[in-house]
């Protein structure tokens, strides 16, 4: 049977155009945020069941809390000692899996001072729900 399918083709064209737009915009934004600035300070983040430890460039270690400076760029080298975890600072959209045997990197520059939550975003067992830490961003 001969249907006039022109309506369907126009509809598909609109849908495809929208998707191309979303894809291109996403590609562009990701491209920009993918590279950490060269002067970013490196923080080693280690996740293990069920707490976080942080090591600054100068060797200072912090367990369960992290003190950073406002408007400084930081690059996190994230890894795990046992099972998969996920290092997440929701208020700054920092998110990266902590995988044992592998170091993943994610960077940010906190633009607000205050106290923020760090949580685990990958199921890691019994106390996954309470694998939290505190981020303190100081204005200096």
């Amino acid at each position, binding site marked *: 049977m001969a249907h006039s399918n022109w309506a369907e083709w126009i509809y598909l064209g609109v849908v495809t155009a929208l998707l191309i737009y979303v894809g291109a915009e996403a590609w562009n934004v990701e491209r920009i945020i993918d590279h950490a600035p060269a002067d970013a300070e490196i923080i080693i983040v280690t996740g*293990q*069941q069920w*707490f976080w430890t942080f090591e600054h460039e100068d060797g200072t270690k912090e*367990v*369960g809390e992290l003190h950073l400076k406002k408007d400084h760029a930081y690059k996190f080298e994230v890894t795990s000692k046992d099972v998969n975890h996920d290092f997440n600072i929701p208020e700054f959209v920092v998110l990266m899996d902590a995988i044992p045997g592998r170091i993943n990197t994610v960077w940010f520059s906190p633009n607000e001072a205050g106290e923020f939550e760090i949580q685990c975003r990958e199921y890691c067992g*019994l*106390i996954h729900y309470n694998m939290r830490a505190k981020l303190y961003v100081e204005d200096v």
Partner: protein
Amino acid sequence: MSEYDETVYRTSPGRAAKLMIILVGLVVVGGVIFFALGDYWISELSPAGKAFAGITDEEDAAPAVAQTGADIPVTLDFIESKDFRTLAFNALPGEPGNNPTINAKVGDRIIFNILNAGKSFHAFGVTLNEEGFGGILSGTDIAAANNPLKPGEGGTSEFIPGEPGTYYYICTVPGHRELGMVGTIIVE
């Protein structure tokens, strides 16, 4: 076609009831089996898990000996700081009674009375290892990391050292030793 003319009953109250009895009965039987065996289903660790935790079937690093000395009862409570960042036995760091050191002689029987006085999950064991949560000497363990003591639960275990040296009593949940749940047992 004649078969479409007459009213056709394919199911009846009797058959519906039979169906429900069979299905509900199966679920009930399954539930009975599940709950009757309780924690059995989650009681073990996989061989790879045991390897990771350093739990081996081989000869203990300190094989068990008979008691030739005195009984030393020790009470240890798992406690936590409010923010869960610091853990300890009996008292937090800086306060009296924190992680008490136990002194004993070879052949003494140390009887551990353990209570989880915190809000999180803990388990107990004695090890020779200077770090980590493995190498737990057999007979000294109470609960385990994958089946831990819930708040308010407790247990007992004993340890008869056969060799002099420094032993450690720890919480065997990974990471808890690093957060402070460790004490020493000095055996002469």
